[in-house]
């Protein structure tokens, strides 16, 4: 990996106009006397950093922090008001929701059109056409107008074109959120190939788990400013921790994190913790360990027939489990003062993973929230005696084989 940067971002600021009255007619302009009525909004404020050549670079931040805007500036689709962006090498961008396909044209025509926009010659495209279609896995539909495509097919074809033009710098915005797992895996492999070929990839994604392992460097944007930059694992952890802290300390929640705690507050969650076999709070467990989730509460008044709910998300955002007291058959007539409820899990059927726990107090109809704390407890699962090969859950299955007599003889 050479040290020369592939992308240099220098003091970039981007302003958007938010029109109070979206009226692009001449009459409207004349009525305003030439003065347009809009508010200014700085989506990027003096952002400077460098993306090294050959790195896989993550851009992380809350929604609305300016990640997409920055990618568009790097891709030259938007022009910053101030500052400069220099890119060394060809750039292909795969922005949110597909890449500039013409809905009336067939997939085939769009591949050629898009490819030539991205700078491929007709001959190159003809040579790569099969590979592109193959990768996208949409061969039977290639001669249909793309307006008939599902969003997944649309995205896959866009990704396939962008990646097959062999750019020096590939910009990818949130595309991994769409598409099935198999395709996502193919994309990941492509990113790895890219890195091996010494090319630069810039990825925006909320899948923190994959970002952590896939990327070597990361920049953290917060409300249009660069907050932190460095090794991807460190930045991702800090970013995830910050979200975590905000959830734990109510009152500090602001802006985009306001959703971390919501509810009308008659009953509030005090402590949410996970206890190990000895009854002490722990943040690290092994597959198959007995665990008790203890949810403490505090009421300002008597709350009739409440329900408690818990949910678990993987660190990369997948909700894989939820359970509440009503489904669990625990009917609470009322709660008052302080107290706690426990969920006893005899064996933690999870594979090694980092997991976020959320808790909620609801009314008996499950439609009203008294208090909700999102991702208020993080724990990690480590390999236990029982080991399975991948994924989140450990189902505890056992392999058996019904071998033919000869095979079992040689096996013995």
């Amino acid at each position, binding site marked *: 990996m050479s040290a020369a940067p592939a992308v240099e971002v220098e003091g970039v600021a981007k302003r958007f*106009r938010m029109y109070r009255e979206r009226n*692009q*007619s001449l009459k409207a302009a004349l009525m305003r006397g030439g003065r347009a009525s809009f508010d200014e909004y700085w989506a990027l404020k003096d952002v400077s950093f460098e993306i090294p050549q050959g790195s896989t670079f993550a851009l992380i931040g809350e929604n609305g922090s300016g990640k997409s805007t920055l990618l568009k500036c790097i891709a030259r689709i*938007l022009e910053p008001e101030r500052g400069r962006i220099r890119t060394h090498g060809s750039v292909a961008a795969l922005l949110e929701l597909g890449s500039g396909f*013409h809905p*009336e044209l067939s997939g085939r025509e769009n591949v050629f059109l*898009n490819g*030539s*926009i991205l700078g491929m010659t007709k001959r190159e495209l003809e040579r790569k056409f099969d590979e592109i279609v193959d990768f996208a896995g949409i061969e039977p539909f290639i001669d249909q107008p793309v307006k008939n495509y599902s969003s997944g097919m649309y995205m896959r074809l866009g990704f396939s074109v962008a990646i097959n033009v062999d750019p020096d710098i590939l910009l990818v915005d949130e595309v991994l959120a769409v598409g099935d797992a198999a395709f996502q895996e193919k994309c990941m492999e492509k990113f790895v190939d890219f890195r091996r070929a010494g090319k630069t990839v810039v990825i925006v994604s909320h899948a923190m788990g994959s970002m952590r392992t896939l990327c070597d460097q990361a920049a953290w944007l917060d409300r249009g400013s660069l907050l932190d930059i460095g090794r991807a694992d460190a930045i991702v952890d800090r970013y995830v921790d910050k979200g975590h802290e905000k959830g734990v300390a109510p009152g500090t929640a602001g802006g985009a994190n306001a959703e971390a705690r919501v509810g009308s507050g008659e009953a509030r969650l005090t402590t949410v913790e996970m206890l190990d076999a000895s009854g002490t709070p722990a943040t690290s467990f092994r597959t198959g360990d007995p665990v008790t989730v203890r949810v403490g509460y505090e009421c300002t008044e008597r709350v009739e027939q409440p329900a408690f709910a818990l949910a678990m998300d993987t660190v990369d955002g997948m909700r894989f489990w939820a359970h509440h007291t009503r489904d669990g058959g625990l009917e609470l007539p009322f709660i008052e003062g302080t107290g706690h409820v426990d969920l006893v899990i005899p064996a933690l059927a999870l594979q090694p993973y980092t997991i976020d726990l959320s808790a909620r107090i609801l009314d008996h109809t499950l439609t009203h929230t008294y208090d909700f704390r999102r991702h208020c407890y993080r724990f990690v699962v480590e390999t236990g005696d029982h080991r399975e090969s991948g994924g989140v859950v450990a189902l505890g299955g056992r392999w058996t084989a019904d071998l033919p007599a000869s095979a079992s003889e040689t096996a013995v």
Partner: protein
Amino acid sequence: MSVIGDLKDSRGLLVNLTLREVRGKYKRTLLGQGWSLLNPIAVLLIYTLVFGFVLRVPVPIGENSGVQIFALYLACGLIPWTFFSNSVTSGMGALLGNANLLRKVYFWRPTLVVASVFAWDVTFAIELLVLMAALLIVGSMPLPWLPLLLLAVVLLTVFALGIALMLSVANVYFRDTQHFVSIGMQLWFYATPIVYPYSLIQDQADRMAADGNGFPLETIYRLNPMERFVSVFRSMLYDNTWPQWGDVLFCVVVAAASLGIGIWVFTRSQHRLVEEL
């Protein structure tokens, strides 16, 4: 100049976009590309009926060709005009019509406008060929002027392109531009000697002069670049004479000015283009 570099880099894309426009124009119509000939023929028939038979516009005699057919006289002006008007109209809508593309990928933005103008050049060329065949049949001989004719086509393309570039960005910022332009185009059409000969204007100017009215009608009338273009096309096709060199020079100057201003306006106002789409 960076514009030329950009244009060079966008060659492949330009060809592709132009082909898309040409193919897309009559997509899913029963007659397909046939429409590119049927359309002008229908317009020609209507105007011939109205202006040739009903209003009895005088039909000039071709100076060297001796041809005196209203439909052909009309076609020699109408075909260049139709090209101009179609190029400007579709070039103007090229940015809005491709918002999808502009928001997702970077490429040299004027390519879209250039492609939609070039697509009409294809139609223009076909129509000119058919017209020349018709002229040959009735005894006009425009072939010796073919190279100059080609130059006239290029100049008219450049002229239309410049205007289309200006209007295409204007249309993004002010959506009613296209409505103004469609009215403007109608006015412009009748201000150009297409459905009537230039001699009618001359007659009118003479009459005004006889009445002691000093209004410089002819001078003003001849400021219209399309008048010059039409007369250049007509002298070669219909009259089989060299065009007046003053007219050719005028065309060169307005074409260059139009393109220059067009590029200037475009580059100056494309800064917030994508956000305004």
